């Protein structure tokens, strides 16, 4: 490689970082070149984010040296790191929601006069957007943008600040397959222009698609650093978890359905939406004439590009958003515009899109989170009072049954890893054997081991006879779990296919708004 003669973009040597006795990074050495996409992979808690936060100036290492473009540097704050041309896109975006894209770009920008130079920045956004496939309306307000667009704003902001080394922390976790493909193109173009891209991910397919080199971390250490062309998904998975994973083998060409439980074509519909319409947050129709049925023992996958009505569909079914037209029935009962409590009481479990914002109380301990559904009912409650012993045994059982790894039930949920948070939430929601499970991105930001567990749990629920509405932007997940797949586009269901007919290509066309007729395929249903 000719790049080897150029100074390394980033060179971390012997980095060690401890948090309250836990070693997050243990003598880590990491290199990234200019002109390459370098993937950093590992399970949750492997130390990837800590290492990158050190590079971004958020933490100071306890030991070790950092070189950027050949020079030894010490970062006292993210500002120092930015000044060296390093920029990081975090999983949780650092944008001011009520502000426009242009205003966010101006935030914290140095060397400005009295007046905000909005027009100039808007031109620059357009220019950079065109060049790198990061188009976004500079005058739109952040809250109006889809997650994918918000991410583009984050990247644009770094480019505008002159960053030459971009760190992206699980950037595709929040994206649709199409958006992911677009992001990968953008990253390749940036690398070709000489940028150094560090790409943190769990998703090995994408890693192999985008990266030139891959560094694997496990338990705070680097276990391997390899050329992407010289490795396989299977090798990487083994390096990440340190053991063989059955799911990766099964995954290849496996039929999604195991043939257990009641036959979905003949069983009773649990969820029925007819002619449902709803408004989005911006007061424009977000769902139009949606007709759906999910039967007992069936998983219906909802595919679609983010912002095509998935969130509104989730909220309409769980009672969090009013329906403007049509009806929602659960087990034959009309629950249109019933309250979330009534819908929950009708036997609906809800695994929400953003678990920390909606489904959990991060600042409360595990017991407080465990009883969020059960606190009204005996044995947890007796009259208006809560029974401590019942709470304790309920919480302990939940932690045991769903394999939630926590020191004890009194730690705050905030301190758990994403996978353990999600297992706690899912366990809580599945208590009481719900008829219908509304699961939205159930494995987002969750490590490989926990993803496997969660998928197994959802399959077991199907075998038990539960109906599942699975809304996910991870097409692999949808294909792995669903019996049928419906596609949302522009707030409408544009396709409803049995799993056998739902190939990634066909779904991709539907998700892009090409109807089944145009795609030259037979319309199902």
């Amino acid at each position, binding site marked *: 490689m000719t790049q080897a003669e150029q100074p390394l973009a980033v060179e971390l040597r012997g980095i060690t970082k401890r948090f*309250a006795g836990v070693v997050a990074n243990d003598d880590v050495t990491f290199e990234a070149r200019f002109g390459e996409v370098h993937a950093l992979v590992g399970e949750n808690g492997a130390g990837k984010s800590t290492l990158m936060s050190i590079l971004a100036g958020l933490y100071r290492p306890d030991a070790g040296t950092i070189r950027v473009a050949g020079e030894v540097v010490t970062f*006292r*704050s993210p*500002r*120092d790191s930015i*000044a060296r041309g390093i920029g990081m896109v975090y999983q949780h975006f650092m944008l001011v929601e009520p502000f426009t894209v242009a205003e966010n770009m101006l935030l914290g920008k*140095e*060397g400005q006069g009295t007046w905000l130079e909005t027009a100039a920045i808007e031109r620059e956004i357009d220019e950079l957007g065109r060049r790198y496939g990061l188009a976004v309306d500079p005058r739109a307000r952040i809250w109006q943008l889809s997650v994918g667009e918000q991410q583009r704003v984050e990247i644009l902001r770094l480019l505008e600040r002159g960053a030459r080394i971009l760190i992206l922390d699980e950037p595709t976790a929040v994206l649709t397959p199409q958006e992911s493909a677009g992001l990968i193109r953008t990253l390749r173009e940036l690398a070709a222009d000489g940028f150094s891209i560090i790409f943190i991910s769990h998703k090995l397919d994408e890693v192999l698609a985008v990266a030139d080199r891959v560094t694997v971390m496990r338990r705070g250490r680097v276990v391997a650093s390899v050329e992407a062309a010289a490795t396989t998904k299977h090798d990487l998975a083994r390096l990440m978890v340190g053991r063989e994973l059955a799911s990766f083998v099964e995954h290849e060409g496996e039929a999604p359905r195991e043939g257990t439980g009641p036959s979905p074509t003949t069983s009773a519909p649990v969820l029925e939406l007819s002619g449902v319409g709803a408004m989005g947050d911006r007061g424009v129709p977000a769902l139009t004439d949606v007709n759906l049925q999910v039967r007992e023992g069936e998983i219906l996958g909802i595919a679609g590009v983010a912002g095509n009505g998935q969130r509104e569909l989730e909220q309409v079914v*769980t*009672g*969090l958003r009013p329906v403007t037209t049509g009806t929602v029935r659960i087990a034959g009962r009309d629950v249109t515009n019933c*309250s*979330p*409590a*009534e*819908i*929950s009481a009708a036997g609906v479990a*809800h695994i*929400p899109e953003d678990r920390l*914002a*909606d*489904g*959990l*109380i*991060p*600042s*409360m301990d595990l017991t*407080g989170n465990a*009883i*969020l*559904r059960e*606190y*009204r009912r005996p044995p947890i*409650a007796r009259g*208006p*009072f*809560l029974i*401590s012993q019942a709470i304790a045994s309920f919480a302990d059982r939940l932690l045991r049954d769903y394999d939630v790894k926590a020191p004890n039930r009194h730690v705050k949920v905030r301190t758990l890893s994403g996978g353990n948070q999600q297992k706690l939430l899912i366990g809580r929601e599945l208590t009481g054997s719900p008829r219908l499970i509304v699961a939205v991105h159930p494995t987002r930001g969750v490590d490989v081991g926990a993803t496997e567990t969660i998928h197994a749990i959802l399959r077991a629920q199907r075998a038990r006879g539960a109906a599942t509405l699975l809304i996910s932007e991870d097409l692999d997940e949808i294909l792995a779990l669903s019996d049928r797949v419906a596609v949302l586009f522009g707030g409408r269901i544009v396709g409803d296919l049995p799993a056998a007919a739902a190939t990634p290509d066909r779904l991709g066309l539907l998700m892009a708004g090409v109807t089944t007729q145009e795609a030259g395929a037979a319309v199902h249903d």
Partner: protein
Amino acid sequence: MTEASAVVRWRERMPLRVERTLEPSLTVRILVPIVSIILALLTGAILILVSGENPIAVYRAMARGAFGDRYGVAETLVKAIPLLLTGLGVAIAFRMQLWNIGAEGQLYLGAIFATGTALFLFPDWPAVPLITAMILAGLIGGAVWGLIPGVLRAWTGANETIVSLMLNYVAILFSEYLVHGPWKNPQGFGFPGTEQFPEAAWLPRYGTYRVHLGLVFGLVAAVVLWVILRRTRWGYELAVTGENPRAARYAGMRTRRNIILVMALSGALAGLAGMSEVAGVGHQLQRNLSPGYGYTAIIVAWLGRLHPAGIVLVSFLLAALLVGGDQLQMGMGLPAAVAPMLQGTILFFLLGGEVLTRWRLARR
């Protein structure tokens, strides 16, 4: 050098920055208030020296005033009662992230309702039913005043901080109107105030001291509140709503109803404080019924960490500070400004210490 890097280098020279600490340890939580008080006393000593007095003598006089004899302790308890009740009231609202700063007005409304009950509704009733009726009246008066910002917040989203603050002025001025106008004592020699209550309406006192039954109200309220917060479904709902309102909605909790109920309860406790002031201390409704108890309540609630036991402790300490300061003025003839100055210094250090247990200065 570009302007940007100049700014960066300037920031690098700043030796300190503020960081959030992790959970403070128990030692830190106990040590910090003690050190804060010592530092406050040292700083206060400088202020006293500057005004030409002997700090040790002044401190001794303050301590003697607040704790030195039974009279002092009794006076401290008298002042602690309204602080305790109003402190508990605002704390339960704060738990739900409702910033009720209207305890002062709610206290006045409770006092007005209780006064109306004693003087005009049932002036001939015997003590037990009359005092019971006055307790209810006080609770209702405060609750009504708390409900107004509560209902507005729940149904229109109106900011409860501003509404509750403005209602303080309405309540205080309404009470002024009553004591200068329709409820004025005709035999009061022009003093603004109502007639004295019938003796049946007086809260029982302990011996010859001014400590009255209101102390029991406060302690019972603290226990009840602790049970609600720790042991009931409703208390759990309040905690969830306060920590993550979206999770409360997700779980189907009736947030609007809870906002209204909490504001009513918060106001009711302040109203009870007002009732116990008129029935236990003044035996009439008069001008300047409260020297700002409802505002001090906010400090009480925060220093007590919104925990009933903490609020009991802090209300007694702040009451001691008030009584000790009064003694200074009366006993030593110090200028009126010295006592509040010392009180302010002590509060400043206590709150500062409180901040530093959660945030720390770190070397850059």
